[in-house]
């Protein structure tokens, strides 16, 4: 008796007649669990093809809503789901494609607190996120749990794909040990992306995921595929397992740590709480401007170094300490790289503070451009 019903056998016929898949392979797909982190440009083709292929259990992680500007490339969503949560939109579309798939929705931002719990128990993770912080988090969690990661990323007309954290293979940190500093690498919202590019790269990720699940072919372990859509050139370069890699080599990374997301989306044009560059802050302070400088990092970071004249209120304590912030002064908020401070700026604006600015690139940028005596960490 097969695990697959009559209608499923009919549905997957073109797989089952492939000797490399066969009935056993198709049953294996049905018993498999894949976690797709990010249901955007890359996650769209990944989810569609894995659902169509009959992967029995798909976990979907996203916290965003469908926006009209997504539809140029995020083919999982549609005009009728603009404004709805991406997960709802995705599940409706995928269930229509294949009602035999079971879905688990994680409507949350992957964080150091929840990543291990979410990823544990999956056979393969597909990284389709849009920022460095989550990519490093996914990598470190996959290494710790021993779950292979079908990785892909895109920028303008270029893409990358590989399989990280496979048994004996290298990881993302073997290739790029640390995330780039703020502003060094623009994100898609700043740089743009060819709409079809995530289709190219995402289908490669889906292919790798299926190969890993079935144990067929040669997965992209130890190799990075570079896709150049303008030249339509595919290059392959080797990724060596680095014995000094803090994740999979020396294993100094034993638990997950929040990484400041240095390349998150900037606020929309004209939004309040605009960004202030470190150069502008230094310049304006020299000419007599004296804003209330708010540091929202944690106390242990404050002891490493701080900008002169700053006041420390960690982000978590901000809601109950709003009264300490003068309402009649300009406020400039900073953190390590500019992400927590943006959250703080939003909270302050919501609480009624009028003139609040976010220090772009945080204290790392301040250290790089203004005061090199502040240690980078």
């Amino acid at each position, binding site marked *: 008796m097969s695990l697959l019903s009559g209608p499923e056998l009919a549905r997957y016929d073109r797989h089952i007649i492939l000797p490399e898949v066969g009935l056993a392979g198709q049953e294996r797909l049905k018993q498999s669990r894949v976690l797709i982190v990010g249901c955007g*440009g890359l996650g769209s083709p990944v989810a569609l093809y894995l659902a169509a292929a009959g992967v029995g259990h798909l976990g979907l992680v996203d916290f965003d809503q469908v926006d009209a500007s997504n539809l140029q490339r995020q083919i999982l969503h549609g005009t009728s789901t603009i404004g709805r949560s991406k997960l709802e939109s995705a599940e409706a579309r995928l269930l229509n494609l294949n009602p035999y798939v079971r879905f688990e929705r994680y409507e949350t931002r992957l964080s150091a607190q929840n990543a291990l719990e979410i990823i544990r128990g999956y056979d393969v993770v597909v990284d389709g996120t849009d920022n460095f912080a989550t990519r490093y988090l996914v990598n470190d969690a996959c290494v710790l749990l021993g779950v292979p990661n079908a990785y892909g990323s895109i920028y303008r007309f270029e893409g*990358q794909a590989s399989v990280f954290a496979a048994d004996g293979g290298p990881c993302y940190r073997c290739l*790029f*040990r*640390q995330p780039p500093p703020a502003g060094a*690498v623009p994100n898609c919202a700043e*740089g743009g992306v060819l709409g079809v590019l995530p289709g190219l790269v995402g289908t490669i990720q889906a292919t790798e995921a299926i190969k890993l699940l079935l144990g067929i072919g040669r997965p992209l372990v130890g190799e990075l595929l570079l896709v150049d859509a303008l030249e339509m050139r595919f290059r392959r*370069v080797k990724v060596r397992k680095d014995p000094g890699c803090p994740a999979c080599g020396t294993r100094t990374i034993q638990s997950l740590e929040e990484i400041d997301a240095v390349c998150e989306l900037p606020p929309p044009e004209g939004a309040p709480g605009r960004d202030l560059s470190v150069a502008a802050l230094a310049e304006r302070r020299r000419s007599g401007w004296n804003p209330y400088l708010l540091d929202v990092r944690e106390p242990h970071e404050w002891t490493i170094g701080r900008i002169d004249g700053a006041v420390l209120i960690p982000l978590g304590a901000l809601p109950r300490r709003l009264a300490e912030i003068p309402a009649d002064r300009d406020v400039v908020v900073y953190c390590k790289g500019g992400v927590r401070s943006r959250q703080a700026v939003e909270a302050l604006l919501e609480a009624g503070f009028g003139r609040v600015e976010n220090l772009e690139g945080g204290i790392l940028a301040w250290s790089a451009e203004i005061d090199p005596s502040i240690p980078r960490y």
Partner: protein
Amino acid sequence: MAVTVVLPSVLARFAGGQRTHASPAGTIEEVLARVAQPYPELGKRLADATRDGNEFVTVYLNDEDTRFSGGFETYAADGDEVTIVSAIAGG
């Protein structure tokens, strides 16, 4: 014949948008210096991005990561391709 240097677009924006460059044969260090010579900002970015402990750019000679094959002293001969790979995060 020369060495071909391929820049990712993240860095090509500091080289007048041009992705493919040619240089006479030499060590990786010489080849990169030659390519960056007309573009000081590119040189600065490359130096920053490959500094120890801050590597978000990897330099390949053909398909080998130069960090494991002699670093910037590695010799790139005529016909070789130097590919610079930058971390990107879009999805």
